[in-house]
């Protein structure tokens, strides 16, 4: 398990990213829908069919596991492999942000230069 290659799961879709992030604490499907909308500051709204499909796939890949039931609702939580995948995704996003910051600095410098030539 510890040697599971996490690279094959990366990059995560936005939906999967927020689902895994929400499942850092145990939740049922609808709670994940609500939590994802809140932590994404409303930028993502997950639909039930999407959540259900993602849960099935993530459970099959052992990135999440069922930890209990609340009536007819299944409660899931992220696994250790899931955490490592999530961290891998976060690392990718950090690289994305750093590269953006660097290239925007270059762009701003160039724009300033062009303006001074006018």
């Amino acid at each position: 398990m510890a040697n599971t290659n996490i690279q094959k799961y990366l990059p995560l879709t936005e939906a999967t990213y927020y689902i895994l992030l929400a499942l850092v604490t145990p939740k049922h499907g609808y709670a994940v829908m609500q939590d994802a909308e809140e932590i994404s500051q409303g930028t993502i709204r997950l639909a039930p069919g999407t959540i259900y499909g993602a849960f099935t796939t993530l459970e099959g890949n052992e990135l999440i596991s069922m930890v209990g039931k609340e009536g007819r609702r299944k409660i899931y939580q992220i696994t250790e492999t899931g955490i490592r995948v999530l961290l891998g995704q976060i690392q990718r996003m950090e690289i994305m942000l750093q590269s953006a910051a660097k290239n925007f600095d270059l762009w701003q410098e160039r724009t300033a230069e062009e303006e001074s030539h006018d």
Partner: protein
Amino acid sequence: MTNKFITKQKWFWAWQDEKEEAWLAEMAQQGLHLNTVPFPGSYRFKNGDPADHVYRMDYQSLKTKDKDSYLQLFADAGWEQVGEMGGWMYFRYDAAKGTAPEIFSDRESKIGKYQRVLTYLAILLPLMVVMMPNITGAERYGPIFVILEALTFLVMVLLSFGIIQLFRRINQLKKTG
């Protein structure tokens, strides 16, 4: 005095789910609300007040124990299950509750639905090919076998057409989202 229930016959193919959803919403605006789908192509409606309802269909072959949690999740999100026929799940959402949502929020999961239908049809087709010689075995003649042969052939043509249509639908979704 009107009847409480009305049954309508209408045929939609597996790749016409969006057309079917639109038709059910149209019926709801006339006050006919889907109650059950007793047979393929047969829709039982309950007579009531016209309403703005959104209908969506999913395709799932779930074990009973998984179906409970599946339906509960849809119910929590405001989708009432109103029918089930051959793996097709019919859901209704009251548009008056706010903006009409979808049952799939991204392209991947929407494609996933058509892939599940496709898998089902793709299993049926080779099964038909294997069955064909048994049904229409060389030593058998007579009108019954001609009819059976024609029917089997027709079903195979339809299955192939369905598979092509679903592939096109999936490719279209991959391009446009």
